[in-house]
């Protein structure tokens, strides 16, 4: 250990727990609480099983086989949730895996060739996403925080709009039921204390269901079938099969990119929720999170189901309820397995009345949008970044609003443009690439040993101000340079690509008779994101530092 007795405290293990959390990341809630929280999150993610049912119907899969698809889907989701919550294997945050609407348009297109084609292409998308995970970290400048925030906001809008559509399908009584679900969730989420806040989403759904029973809205047609189904049973594997069609490759790969960004945002939100002193994204957790998400989609494809992703609705509920313990992931996975082996329960859950599901989706959509804006708030906004967010957001909202523009597009492009998230992220990547053209900045500062350190630091500070570098990066750089700039420091190279600041500090060879003292790197090692030291043949050395924005 370089500094005996003083441990480094900059990793996520040392994050500062926010006061608002009831069950923090490493807490172990009591068994009953755990079971209830697990059920709540399962209930939040369960409506997405309707996506699987929708795709099965489009692929001409009969009801019995569709139940098998649902069961295998839940088993894949249970495994993925367990791995995702593991600190060693996954992101280490409580993130529930769910079937995702991101893959819906691509899957519906592929469903015309049958379910095996959907599964085969889902498998390909999952493998691509797993590879994309490492690329995402290396090429992070193409996916800056503003694009992550944008993708989260669009997901929130999509969830909210789906919710509004579902609750408005039953006319005024449906609006009342959905409104009651939403209102009760908000009241308990905002004003509730202790366990009342923990179960805000469940309480909202329960109240919404009670109101629903009084309205006389006709129930889902298949709800009664649930009671005649077996309570427990092994799922049928008759549907398993894989086929591939290159014609659907592009929409699936694009959906995988969007899914990666969404997971990137989900991990980022979790890091923020769990750390009151959050400063910057944890790229290792993000990489593992995206990797596990890709493997989850791969597994889902192998199991004969559709694409999966991190449930941002569940993350939103964690935030609202103040329960972010990763142990809850085990409870969610257990519930998933129970329901996977229980056709009756699965049926019952997926046939929750539309207005109740709608009200809950509006609630979680609002939370997800708020989380997206929180991330956006950490980005130092300038015209370039505003452009990266504003135009794609406009296009995404136009897509959600079914603007006539999209009907006029050529048929070959339509699958790409069918999802607001896909089109929004695609537009953001293009705008970012275009507006970043020539944006990379470089500067070399000659360090005159005669000048006081404070003056040299101010010179660097002026350069960083001019480049609109985030405040937290400037602070970390100042502290690092204050520590490293000594009489041997001869030149400083700065390079900023809009996302990462690279610093190269050249230090002259020590004088022959100089006493060798260890480099002071107490802060440099702790506040930089990467640090390397290279000695040259002439005795001089270069310290390379990297700061992620």
């Amino acid at each position: 250990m370089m500094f005996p007795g003083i441990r480094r405290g900059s990793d996520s293990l040392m994050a500062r727990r926010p006061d608002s959390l009831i069950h923090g990341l490493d807490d172990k809630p009591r068994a009953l609480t755990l079971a209830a929280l697990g059920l709540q999150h399962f209930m939040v993610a369960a409506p997405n099983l309707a996506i699987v049912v929708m795709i099965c119907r489009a692929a001409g899969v009969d009801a019995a086989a569709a139940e098998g698809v649902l069961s295998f889907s839940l088993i894949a989701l249970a495994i993925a949730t367990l791995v995702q919550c593991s600190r060693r294997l996954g992101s280490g945050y409580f993130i529930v895996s769910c079937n995702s609407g991101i893959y819906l348009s691509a899957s519906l297109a592929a469903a015309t060739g049958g379910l095996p084609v959907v599964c085969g292409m889902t498998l390909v998308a999952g493998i691509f996403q797993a590879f994309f995970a490492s690329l995402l970290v290396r090429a992070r400048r193409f996916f800056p925080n503003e694009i992550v925030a944008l993708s989260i906001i669009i997901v929130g809008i999509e969830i909210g709009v789906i919710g509004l559509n579902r609750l408005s399908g039953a006319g005024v009584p449906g609006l009342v039921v959905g409104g009651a679900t939403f209102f009760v969730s908000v009241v308990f989420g905002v004003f509730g204390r202790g366990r009342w806040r923990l179960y805000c989403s469940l309480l909202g759904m329960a109240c919404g269901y009670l109101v629903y029973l009084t309205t006389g809205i006709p129930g889902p047609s298949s709800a009664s079938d649930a009671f005649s189904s077996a309570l427990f049973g092994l799922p049928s594997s008759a549907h398993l099969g894989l086929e591939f069609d290159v014609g659907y490759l592009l929409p699936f790969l694009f959906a995988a990119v969007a899914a990666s960004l969404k997971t990137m945002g989900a991990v980022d939100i979790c890091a923020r929720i769990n750390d009151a002193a959050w400063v910057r994204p944890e790229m290792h957790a993000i990489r593992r999170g995206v990797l596990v998400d890709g493997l989850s989609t791969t597994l889902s494809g192998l199991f004969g189901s559709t694409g999966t992703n991190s449930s941002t609705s569940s993350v939103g509920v964690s935030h609202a309820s103040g329960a972010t313990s990763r142990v809850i992931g085990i409870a969610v996975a257990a519930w998933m397995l129970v329901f996977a082996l229980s056709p009756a329960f699965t049926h019952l859950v997926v046939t929750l009345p539309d207005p109740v599901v709608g009200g809950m989706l509006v609630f979680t959509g609002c939370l997800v949008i708020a989380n997206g804006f929180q991330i956006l708030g950490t980005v130092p906004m300038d015209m370039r970044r505003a452009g990266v967010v504003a135009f794609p957001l406009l296009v995404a909202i136009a897509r959600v609003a079914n603007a006539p523009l999209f009907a006029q597009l050529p048929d070959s492009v339509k699958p790409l443009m069918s999802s607001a998230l896909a089109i929004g992220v695609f537009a953001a990547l293009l705008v970012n690439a275009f507006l970043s053209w020539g944006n990379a900045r470089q500067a070399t500062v000659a360090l005159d040993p005669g000048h006081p350190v404070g003056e040299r630091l101010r010179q660097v500070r002026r350069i960083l101000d001019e480049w609109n570098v985030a405040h937290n990066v400037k602070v970390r750089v100042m502290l690092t340079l204050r520590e490293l700039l000594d009489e041997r420091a001869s030149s400083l190279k700065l390079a900023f690509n809009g996302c990462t600041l690279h610093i190269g500090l050249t230090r002259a060879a020590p004088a022959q008779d100089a006493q060798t003292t260890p480099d002071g790197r107490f802060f440099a090692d702790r506040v930089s994101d990467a640090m390397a030291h290279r000695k040259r043949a002439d005795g001089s050395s270069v310290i390379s530092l990297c700061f992620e924005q």
Partner: protein
Amino acid sequence: MPIAIWTPALSLGVDSLDADHQKLIDTLNMVFDAMLFDRSSAALHSALATLDDYVTGHFAREEAWMQARDHPDLARHRQEHEALRDQLALLCAMSDLSDQERSVELLMVLRDWLLGHIAHSDRDASGP
């Protein structure tokens, strides 16, 4: 984002002195956090007030503890304490610097204090 964590390896075996040392690490983390969130001004003044108390109360406690043990290094230790007092006084007098620049300087002082004095001199004084 705490950048330093106190560990039992730094312990002198005297609860009150250990608590003082932990307080110093807390101050270091607090100043750094405040800088990150652009709240240097309030944190700096709070930290300087804490350290002002520290150099009177803690140093006196530590010297009394060493005196009670007839420690041979007491004189050198007193000199180090005096040097740290001077450093702090110098920092308080740096009125030409911005609060953020003074915060950086304060962190450097705390670092030296932590690495030079607490992690070495104090630990040596506590014996094997």
